[in-house]
């Protein structure tokens, strides 16, 4: 059994834990660092897939956790609700509005202290005024209140400095109105982190999976090979020259269908230091920026603790 491999057997995953210290394998820190590899597999506006090889689970996990909850964004925090005659109760409406992702680079803003005023430095202000009317011809206008109805109310010189702010999506339904109903509100965005409230989380989700390692335990040919190929829903296997081969191991979703009835043919395994990250952004930051910010945050944390350790080391023991 390879310490760097976890095996998916019929009933349970095996060898999942890493108990040794990374340096216990006789490698030096430099060797470990030089072995780290990072490849971007796919980069789109809304998501990013990265391969990270050669790091340990705690580091990869730290990155994931920071992306979820510690990279700051802007989100609506305070609402002055002047009018709400819709069917949605005030607090539910406020909750809904709070969850709308705002397209604003949080790095341009400061965190707002509880007893600080809203200012151009720490706040983006929007206005929402939606009225639903029945026109003379009987048609109804304004029955849907969308996130696109939020109007930016720039603080003095915000416009010059930052350009334009708006919600990421224009088509999120906030509320539905009937004729004569009205919502009027003033909304204030603040900078915050996901650990406080998920509305500040920059990602829809950021997660990773371990790279699959699929091997055939024996030569599979003929009928069996075709069966195996058909069994896998993700098209991992193929038949070449009458023999089964592993074609697309990365497609594997660990469904274990190929070993469900008979586990003598395929060995399913996971490489424990190969992480395939998927980062989906809510839109405020690009996924690449989120990842970068997360690394920065992790580095800052490390530096903070290094500092602490150094201070501790320097203090004479009594």
């Amino acid at each position, binding site marked *: 059994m390879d310490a760097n491999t*976890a095996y*998916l057997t019929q*009933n*349970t*995953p095996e060898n*999942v*834990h*890493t108990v040794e210290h990374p340096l216990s394998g006789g490698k030096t820190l430099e060797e470990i660092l030089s072995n780290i590899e990072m490849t971007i597999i796919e980069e789109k506006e809304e998501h990013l897939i990265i391969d990270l090889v050669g790091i340990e*689970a*705690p580091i*990869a*996990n*730290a990155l*994931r*956790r920071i992306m*979820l*909850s510690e990279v700051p964004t802007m989100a609506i925090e305070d609402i002055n*609700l002047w009018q709400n005659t819709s*069917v949605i*109760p*005030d*607090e*539910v409406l406020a*909750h809904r509005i709070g*969850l709308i992702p705002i397209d604003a680079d949080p790095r341009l803003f400061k965190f707002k202290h509880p007893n600080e005023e809203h200012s151009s430095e720490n706040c983006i202000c929007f206005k929402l005024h939606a009225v639903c009317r029945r026109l003379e011809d009987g048609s109804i206008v304004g029955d849907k209140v969308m996130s696109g109805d939020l109007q930016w109310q720039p603080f003095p010189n915000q416009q010059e400095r930052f350009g334009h702010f708006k919600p990421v999506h224009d088509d999120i339904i906030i509320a539905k109105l009937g004729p004569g109903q009205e919502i009027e509100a003033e909304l204030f965005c603040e900078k915050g982190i*996901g*650990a406080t*409230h*998920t*509305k500040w*989380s920059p990602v829809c*989700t*950021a*997660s*990773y*999976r*371990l790279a699959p390692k699929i091997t055939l335990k024996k030569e599979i040919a003929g009928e069996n090979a075709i069966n195996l190929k058909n069994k896998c*829903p*993700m098209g991992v296997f193929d038949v070449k020259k009458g023999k089964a081969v592993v074609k697309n191991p990365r497609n594997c*979703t*660990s*469904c*274990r*269908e190929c070993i*469900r009835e008979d586990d003598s043919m395929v060995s399913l395994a*996971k490489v*424990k230091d190969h992480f395939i990250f*998927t980062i*989906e952004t809510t839109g405020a930051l690009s996924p690449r920026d989120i990842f970068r910010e997360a690394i920065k945050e992790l580095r800052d944390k490390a530096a903070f603790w290094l500092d602490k350790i150094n201070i501790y080391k320097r203090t004479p023991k009594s």
Partner: protein
Amino acid sequence: MSQNSHQEQNLLIPAFLQLRGLVKQHIDSYDYFLTTDIKQIVSSPSNCCVLSDYNPDFYLKYKDIRVLMPSIEEDAVISSITPHECRLRDLTYAAPIEVDIEYIKGNKIICRSGLEIGMMPIMLGCCNCVLRNKSEEELAKMLECPYDPRGYFIIKGVEKVILIQEQASKNRIIVEIDSKNNVVAQVTSSTHEKKSRTVVQSKGSKIYMKHNTLSEDIPIAIVFKALGVQADQEIFQLVGTQKQYIDALGMSLQECSILNILTEKQALRFIGSKIKNSKAAKTGRTKIEEARDVLATVVLSHVPCENYDFRAKIRYLGIMVRKVIDAMNDPKKVDDRDYYGNKRLELAGQLVGLLFEDLFKRFNSDIKKHVDKIFSKPKSSKGEPFDVITAMNKKMITEGLNNAISTGNWSLKRFKMERAGVTEVLSRLSYMSALGMMTRINSQFEKTRKISGPRSLQGSQFGMICPSDTPEGESCGLVKTLALTTHITIDQPEEQISKLAFSLGVEDASLFSGDELYSPGVFRVFLNGQPLGVHRDADFLINSLREIRRKGKISEFVSVVKVEEEQQIHIACDGGRLTRPFIIIEKCKSKVEPKHIKELTLGLRNFDDFVNEGLVEYLDVNEENNAVIAMRHENISEDTTHLEIDPFTILGCVAGLIPYPHHNQSPRNTYQCAMGKQALGIIGYNQFLRVDTVLYLLAYSQTPMVRTKTIEIVNYDKLPAGHNASVAVMSYSGYDIEDAIILNKASSERGFGRSLIVKRQNSDLRRYNNGLSDRLVMPPVIHGDNPPPSIKKFHALDKGGIVAVGSIVQTGDVLVNKETPVNKVDDIEMSKLTDNDFKPSFTCFKGPNPTQVNRLFIACNPEEPFLIKTVTIETRPPELGDKFSSRHGQKGVVGLIVQQEDMPFNEQGWCPDMIMNPHGFPSRMTVGKLIELVAGKSGVFQGKFKYGTAFAGDKVIDCGEILVKNGFNYTGKDVLMCGTSGELVGAYIFSGPLYYQKLKHMVADKMHARAIGPKTALTRQPTEGRAREGGLRLGEMERDCLIGYGAASLIQERLMYSSDVFIASVCESCGNLGYEQWCQFCKSRLNIVKVKMPYACKLLFQELQAMNIRPKLNLSSS
């Protein structure tokens, strides 16, 4: 038939329920009352006219009675009202009762039509309700939810349900064995006028008749003799001439001759001497006459007896005796009391009918009293002649009905009946709880009695009464719920049926001698328990009656039953029987064919057409015994007569929510039935327009991923109560022991389990007898940021003195700044009062958390001129300790709320909303929950709802295949990564969506602690209970622990110093309690010492003294 067409036939159920709704039984019965029964009551000879004892010319005759549409009279203007207006304004949804009368005024006959005699509460949805047959849009205009079940009343703004009452059937002979091992045949006779119980009983080898009016048991032969059967042979013939009957009767006949009673007169005299509370002396009648009267009117009063023609009664008694003898010889002949064929369910219509008749009789007797008083006085020749209308008290009927419905106390004078708990407030906790209440059956049995019979499941309730839905604990099995398709019959006129029976060859029993009645091959025919006659060809009669019923010529609810063993045919058309529809099978073929179903889907036919064309028919519990019913198409054999429409209908509407209930351990389904009613959700489309005291709502309620047919039929998919939670079944952190669940913080921040608590607080400005009234005052002006609490509590008020909509209030904040005049007695003019003449009496907000004022409601009604209702809405995200439950009786509290990044996640990045501990499964055996998860997960990938209908539903195999196709594990177990360590989780985790309900038990409503606080006035001990900010009791058992441990000082501290310590003055010389250093007994202050004791102890001494017991305190210093 193929699987396909079998499924199609299920469409009949929605069609059936669409037509009738879930509460048709209530509405039908009330319709019957309003249209038919009320007219019968008023036209019955004992009610239809009022005469005077003093003026033979006078009469008042009721010619007709009607109930109009609901309306209200305000300031002499009559306007129609909607139910919602009644709820909002605390009015009664009632309609005027109008009568047409004819009476004598002076010496003229006067006819009046349309005279109002009172107001009749109107059941929502009945024929006199404005909501009847209204489209969804019209209902919306009346602010009514289209899915509201209706079938309840609104009395003073409160929704009241008259629960279905279960009773043993009336006018039927039931044979039982009593505690002394005697055979007892009893019959409860019930007519409009009287109710009485007649018992024929064996005692040793003799047979007696027992009756409430008779002080002693009467030997049966004497009864026969008194009824005019003189010859012993005739008695034998009435009962049966076979050996066993003669043997059994022998002893009883002998008794006759021992007592030397041989003639009718002697027998009557004998009975006459046994009558309780005999009025013979008063009325001057002889004992014989009185005895004959009792026999004619009281004994077996439901058997008609005109002009002392006892023949029908004699035959009836003969049958009873025969039954007793049969049961003596064969214990199998004893009836089962719990058998549903012997039970009748009383509905709102019948109950209100009884009440109305009672009130109407009282109304008439009041008129009579009044009239008699007028006519007994010497006539004053001048002035207007007396008009009887002035003697009518409209309020009596109105208030009698309203009081009964709002308190639930049914007291009927003429039956000496007092029943409590007939009505209940309609529970609006959730849509399901309202539905459940409308289909609930209350049993008359005492809850305390430890009997298992009436509580246990009965074979005959199959399909009629839900086997799962019953509460746990004391009323288990006594409170039941109707199954989905059960219908309760209403009374049908008997005449038509009896005529039909006679024309089909039933021969009148009076033409036969007793002996011939019992000859083999002859079937005795009974209509509603009354002997009608005999028929020599039972099958012909039964088949033709059924044929006629299927043709729709007589009511579809008439049942015809052949009881082979007893050679009896029972025809029933009475009300309160349980029936349900079946598909008719003829010659192994279902009469419902695919083409019919097609027409149904096209809307070309409805369920009634199926009944009218004889494709589907209703069977009651008794007739089910004559039918061979196939459960499914596959089971049809040669003998099959009927086919179940769908097996899932054996469950009621609440149990119908459970997906795959047939895979669960049975008690789990019962638990879910109790919890489904506590789940927060949407209670109706008009939920934010209602002003209930408390409403619990869920902010983002979701329709379940795994549905059942019942869910769609009862519209639970439109008014759901719960969330499709992503659940991972694994252990996590140890905060999930004992069924606790782990919640994802991010999920709850995104709206999972977020509930709204809508509360209403009333405050009315009263008007007092002296013409003064409460007033609203402007609140004090608040200066500065930190005002004192006494001023700060006014912060939410408007200038008008009422709270501002939108403001946030906390406990103790004033909602309505009201002042009451100090002087409520003397006549003073309002304008002359100064501020000092008023004292504040504001309404304060009660509630644990800061809450927003959502709406204000100001109204008036005839009783309250100025009614202010404040509606607040509190939003509550789930917190530690809130109770959640799946639909499988698996409840758990939130044990820990975890950051999203700490939650495990799968390869796609999915992470659960909730983690449930796998230990919940083995002992509960809720396999249905496992299947729900797999089905739900597969449905998610397919983009389709899955079905977990009872005894059907999507197969696990198919769901597993779908999972595999989408790259998931066949069994629903995924590879998960741990959120804290980042490594793989060392097991495959069963994960997917499960429907979770948030239950109403929330920590915020229950959390309570106190240091010091209020005390009760009498004992000076801390108050009890959270509502009164009470102390936490150190009870006997806790005290025992401390005693055992020997912590004496702690006990003293807890029980005295922290509770009701009191320094009493005690006189050392006499041992009495003193007061303020003075002993009244010794008249001295010399020997007074101070003693610390509990105030309750001091109180006890004083109370003992008041009873002339002198507790003496002997003091010594340690």
